[in-house]
């Protein structure tokens, strides 16, 4: 126990400890001197400062937090002003000309953007990368003393801040603050302090800091943007809330030669008292509220990285975490502590030594009924400890204490156990993610898995997902997706091998989209692989967009058709229409009947001409002819109509549809015929519909019998129909004499029953009766019935001795026709007898 507190240093009523995280496994030639270092979270990037000598290009090196090399390559672009990391572990290199280059962890270039046109003329003097709830942002100040901000580089919106009065060149120091959802810049120019926001530039004065205290040379803001520290050239250190309102500390420190960095940190979350870490060449100073300081000597040049609960001190040989000892750890490990946790730990220690003292300690805790609290303390403290042995002894003590408790929820214990295992795994120097428990909680597991995935620790990530039982959709599948996207970029493997490997691993895990993986493969220029991967995609609709992008339009079309989604088919069709020349386009459609009919439907309504071309291409003469016929209806002029019909005839001929040829030719003849008639007689027929019979009927009704007869002869209309028509037309015009004449002109091919019926229809019973006698015997009964002559009908039926007909007559009889009924019944009986 004594050795745990050995590294503790008191500061006021708190303690600070520094824990060694890693011995750096890198070997740096010149240490960290002359390097531009960006260390965000766990990863560190190092480059030699841009060298003026053209011979030696600066080197860009990327290491893990434990010093394991990720990438190293010579820098070929312009001079770099600032390096930084984004929240998704991408490296930002801000160049002097305002270009920002983005690399991934492995040093491969991803994209770039510019910080604005203005920067191109005036160089970037200084830049800062900052993080806010909106993502990763960049702030720059140019040689024309203007600030430009971008709050989120993934959704780039550049904001040029107002001019700062009296500022020449760069300010003496500045920070970016995020307050009330606004991003502001705090800067000092000599003794003056300004806050710069979107619209204005305001002079501010931190309370308690008088202008006599000198001009501000350094400022630093805490991880949470809550606290601010200012250092003046006279050695005054001011700390307080970043709103500049409340000062908590004003301290005069003797200035050593040069100050490198200062970082105020939030101390205990409960007391909210900040402390500041100052670093000079050979000295690290922690300044607390109580005006006390702790001094750490340092040998090497170091880099400080502020975290939410501590500061990481990176030197060329090792990395340490300087943090305030968490309260619970203080309680347990403080010398002579009587906290329940401390007693429990002691009790367990005695128990392991098989000493009866264990019982005494336990009894003491129990007497205060603090055993539950004791267990909780041990578990919590274990979470904050970095050394696995300490973790173990604390957890064991907790588990020991738990035995004496009933009704104690094991949740906290179990969760902490699991989380510690995960944390220990990722802290391992081969992985190099030195997360504290607090950071882990803040970061969330999801992000941790992302971080592992960015570093390509796929097996570990999957292991963690499975261990913590994260649903596949958020866990394993996500990792597999990243893995597959990474796998397809491996240049040394054949397409087949990769496709197979991906398929075996990914299988049909939920939420992994093969089309996404394929898209990645295509991005890397492996079209063949992309197609192979797409084959695994179960939903054909998903495959289409990528296939289109890959210009595999034929395949895209057939996949779209397969998906059964006509909208998708249509999307592809309209894409193809613009992409291909007409011939190829039609050929493609020809092989896809579904797409073809869809397009035809569209053309019918939108592009009639295209429709014609389509049929032409297909040599579909039948449809082409139909097209001409349809077109002829729309044509008002006779000549136009005839020529279209002639085209139709030609096409029907090609289609060997003789019937249609003849029908169409007839139609043309009919048109000509009526044109002639119109010219001669002014009958005004042209507007009429295209029916031979209607024409004939009209002619008849106009009394143009001769012409009508001519028409029928010309068109070889069967006699029957001619008779029907003439009969009807005469009856309608009530030309009864004419009708009689007609009936006698020759033997009617339609019989005379028709005459009877037509007359009845025209309500002329008298005329109808004239024809009854002419009706053939078979139809006599019907004819008599039609004119309502029941007796006649009965006579005819009896004469023909037809029972069915008699029945028909009977059914029409009303009781008043008793005579007829009687006769019929008799006749029926007579037949029945036979």
């Amino acid at each position, binding site marked *: 126990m004594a050795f745990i507190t050995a590294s503790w240093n008191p500061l006021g009523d708190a303690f600070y400890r520094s824990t060694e995280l890693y011995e750096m496994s890198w070997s740096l030639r010149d240490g960290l001197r002359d390097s531009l270092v960006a260390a965000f979270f766990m990863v560190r990037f190092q480059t030699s400062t841009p060298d003026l000598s053209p011979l030696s290009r600066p080197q860009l090196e990327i290491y893990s937090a434990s010093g394991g090399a990720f990438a190293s390559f010579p820098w070929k672009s312009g001079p770099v002003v600032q390096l930084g990391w984004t929240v998704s572990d991408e490296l930002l290199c801000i160049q002097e000309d305002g270009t920002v280059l983005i690399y991934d962890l492995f040093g491969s270039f991803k994209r770039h953007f510019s910080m604005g046109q203005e920067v191109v003329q005036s160089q970037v003097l200084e830049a800062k990368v900052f993080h806010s709830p909106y993502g990763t942002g960049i702030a720059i100040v140019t040689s024309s003393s203007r600030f430009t901000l971008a709050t989120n580089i993934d959704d780039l919106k550049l904001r040029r801040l107002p001019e700062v009065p009296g500022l020449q060149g760069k300010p003496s120091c500045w920070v970016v603050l995020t307050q009330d959802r606004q991003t502001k810049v705090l800067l000092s120019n000599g003794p003056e302090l300004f806050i710069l926001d979107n619209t204005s530039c305001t002079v501010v004065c931190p309370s308690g800091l008088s202008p006599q205290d000198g001009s501000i040379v350094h400022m630093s803001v805490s991880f949470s943007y809550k606290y601010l520290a200012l250092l003046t050239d006279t050695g005054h250190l001011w700390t307080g809330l970043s709103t500049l309102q409340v000062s908590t500390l004003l301290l005069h420190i003797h200035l050593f030669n040069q100050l490198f960095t200062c970082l105020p940190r939030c101390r205990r979350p409960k007391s909210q008292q900040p402390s500041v870490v100052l670093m000079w060449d050979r000295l690290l100073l922690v300044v607390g509220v109580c005006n006390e300081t702790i001094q750490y000597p340092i040998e090497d040049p170091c880099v400080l990285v502020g975290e939410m609960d501590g500061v990481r001190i990176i030197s060329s040989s090792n990395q340490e975490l300087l943090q305030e000892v968490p309260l619970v750890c203080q309680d347990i490990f403080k010398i002579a502590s009587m906290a329940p946790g401390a007693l429990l730990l002691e009790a367990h220690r005695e128990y392991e030594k098989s000493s009866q003292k264990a019982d005494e300690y336990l009894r003491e805790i129990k007497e205060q009924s603090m055993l539950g609290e004791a267990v909780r303390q041990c578990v919590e403290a274990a979470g904050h400890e970095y050394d696995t042995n300490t973790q173990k002894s604390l957890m064991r003590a907790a588990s020991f204490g738990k035995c004496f408790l009933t009704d104690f929820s094991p949740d906290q214990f179990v969760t902490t156990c699991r989380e510690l295992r995960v944390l220990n795994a990722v802290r391992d120097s081969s992985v190099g993610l030195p997360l504290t428990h607090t950071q882990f909680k803040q970061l969330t597991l999801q992000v941790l898995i992302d971080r592992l995935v960015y570093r390509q620790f796929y097996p570990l990530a999957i292991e963690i997902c499975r261990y913590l039982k994260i649903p596949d959709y958020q866990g394993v599948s996500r990792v597999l997706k990243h893995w597959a996207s990474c796998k397809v970029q491996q240049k040394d493997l054949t397409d087949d091998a990769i496709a197979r490997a991906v398929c075996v691993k990914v299988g049909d895990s939920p939420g992994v989209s093969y089309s996404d993986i394929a898209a990645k493969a295509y991005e890397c220029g492996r079209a063949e692989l992309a197609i192979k991967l797409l084959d695994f995609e179960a939903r054909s609709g998903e495959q289409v967009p990528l296939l289109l992008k890959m210009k595999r339009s034929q395949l895209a079309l057939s996949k779209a058709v397969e998906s059964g989604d006509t909208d998708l088919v249509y999307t592809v069709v309209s894409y193809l229409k613009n992409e291909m020349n007409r011939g190829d386009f039609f050929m493609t459609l020809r092989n896809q009947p*579904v797409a073809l009919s869809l397009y035809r439907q569209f053309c019918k309504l939108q592009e009639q001409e295209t429709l014609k071309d389509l049929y032409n291409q297909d040599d579909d003469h039948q449809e082409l002819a139909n097209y001409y016929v349809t077109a002829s209806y729309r044509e008002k002029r006779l000549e136009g109509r005839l020529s279209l019909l002639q085209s139709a005839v030609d096409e029907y001929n090609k289609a060997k549809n003789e019937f249609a040829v003849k029908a169409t030719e007839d139609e043309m003849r009919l048109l000509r015929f009526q044109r002639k008639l119109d010219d001669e007689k002014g009958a005004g027929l042209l507007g009429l519909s295209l029916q*031979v019979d209607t024409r004939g009927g009209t002619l008849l009704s106009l009394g143009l019998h001769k012409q009508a007869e001519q028409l029928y002869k010309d068109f070889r209309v*069967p006699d029957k129909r001619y008779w029907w028509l003439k009969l009807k037309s005469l009856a309608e015009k009530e030309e009864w004499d004419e009708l009689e004449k007609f009936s006698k002109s020759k033997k009617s091919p339609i019989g005379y029953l028709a005459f009877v019926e037509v007359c009845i229809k025209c309500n002329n019973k008298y005329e109808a009766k004239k024809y009854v006698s002419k009706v053939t015997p078979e139809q006599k009964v019907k004819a008599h019935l039609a004119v309502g002559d029941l007796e006649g009908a009965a006579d005819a039926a009896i004469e023909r001795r037809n029972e069915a007909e008699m029945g028909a007559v009977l059914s029409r009889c009303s009781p008043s026709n008793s005579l007829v009924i009687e006769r019929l019944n008799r006749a029926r009986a007579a037949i029945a007898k036979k």
Partner: protein
Amino acid sequence: MAHSARRDSPELPDFSILKRLARDQLIYLLEQLPGKKDLFIEADLMSPLDRIANVSTLKQHEVDKLYKVEHKPVISTSDQLCFLIRPRIQTVKWICDVVNADKVPGKSRRYKIIFTPQKFYACEAVLEEQGIFGDVTIDEWPFYLLPLDDDIISLELPEFFQDNFLAGDQRWVRTAGSALHLLYSLYGPFSKVYGIGRCSKMAYESWREQVEEGEQKARQAEIGNVFLIDRDVDFVTPLCSQVVYEGLVDDIFRIKCGCVEFGPDVTSSDKSVKVMLNSQDKVFSEIRNEHFSNVFGFLSQKARNLQTAYDKRRGMDIKQMKAFVSEELKGLKQEHRLLSLHIGASESIMKKKTKQDFQELLKTEHLLLEGFEIRECISYIEEHINRQVSMVESLRLLCLLSITENGLLPKDYRSLKAQYLQSYGVDHLLTFSNLRQLGLLVEQQPGETLTVMESKVGKLVNDKTAGKLTDAFSSLAKKSNFRALSRKLNLVPKMDEEYDLRVPRDMAYIFSGAYIPLSCKLIEQVLERDGWMGLEEVTRLLNGHEFAVTGSSGVDSKGKNDTQRIILVMFLGGCTYSEISALRFLGREKGYKFIVVTTAITNSSRLLEALLGNHV
């Protein structure tokens, strides 16, 4: 009805939710465009909309004026226009014209297009082409299903038929799938899905896809089995004259969206009356499924009953009279009104249908179905054409002849066609081309058997001249094998005994005992066999595409519980009232309850009018 029916038919699910859902969705969409607005409604959406939300509901949501889309320039003064339309290119083009016309004088309005039941990419493409994509906001009103009655749900998409079967345009398949999915999510899970036909299969697959995409919720199923059937599986049934009351009313007066307009000849006044025809109408609900020959007797009985009820008044004291007036009189008056309407309608039908020609027409139809005296039938049809009785009727008989006879002899085909063209106009050349494509009216291929056709298709597949493949396929698919099917399934009952239409024996009663509708027979057989087992020959004749899938929900067969006996039948391409009557009969016989979902209610005239080629 004097049926030996099972009395334990299960209760139907409540479909009024569908209406409420649609109304709420529409109101939500209307509120997306706050302030007063004029609403333009596609003509054939008027009636369905009326069933969902009446004018006052629309007015409540700041709809100022209502217009019918008439493809004419608009005269609205409102600065917000809302269009409620089907996803049709013509209508979208018209909207483009409206918007572009406003642009000329620089009038600025807000436009919103609500497509129902969904939008199509082609429509958006037109908007884009016309340069107004940015000027309008687009929404979808997922109004897939309109319950017409307790057991009839319609998609109200008549164009489904010609788009899908004639033009081969499959854009509505997904709509059908979505409609099924809506039913599934409200009343599912289904325990078994059967189907036959290419379109059915695609609709089924589209639905499955949507099920897999969506989340699964365990619910109490309200619908047991589902049967999907394509209209082109059975063209015979819709081509026959309907003789069941509801079908007859549809044939003669045209029921529109569950509502019929009786003209002056029915109402025996000078006004027309619109009547809703559904199970709420007590008189109608009793006669709708009856063969027409029974209807008069029923109605007169009803009239007598009514008279007796009225007569009760006599000899009542004041108190009884008061009770009578307050309780019964209103119901009796209502019944009286309906009764007189239906009697009027029946008279009007009688006038039209009991004439000699109708009897002969029916006789011809029955002969065609049986396959007797074909020569006589042909000459009857010839006369029909020569006398220009009715363009559509003639066509109907021709089609019926062709389907039942497996195509016409080349000689007949030519001569009938020539006569038809001379009688009704040469422009029907295109009609014939359409009918041929659908296989409704074809020429017999001399000596060509099915196997020859098959090998031909096989060759075509290898040749990959796929454009022609569809034609070949469709002509093969459309190759009717009615005669063989009729024998296999016993569709035409033996005529040796008298068929008592008052006490129907089987579903044939809907066609006077002459023919059991193929579609309904298939459903009966499949339900009986719980699949297609033993029907292999039949499905081969129908050109396959049959399927039977047990639901993933794994509803265990808890015996034959109530839900299992609720069957949803979905007709893709429309169904007739006669078929619905037949299914109702089947349900009563076997203790099922059928719910009919159809893309639209159809009949022979609607079917054929959709195929006429003489309109441009």
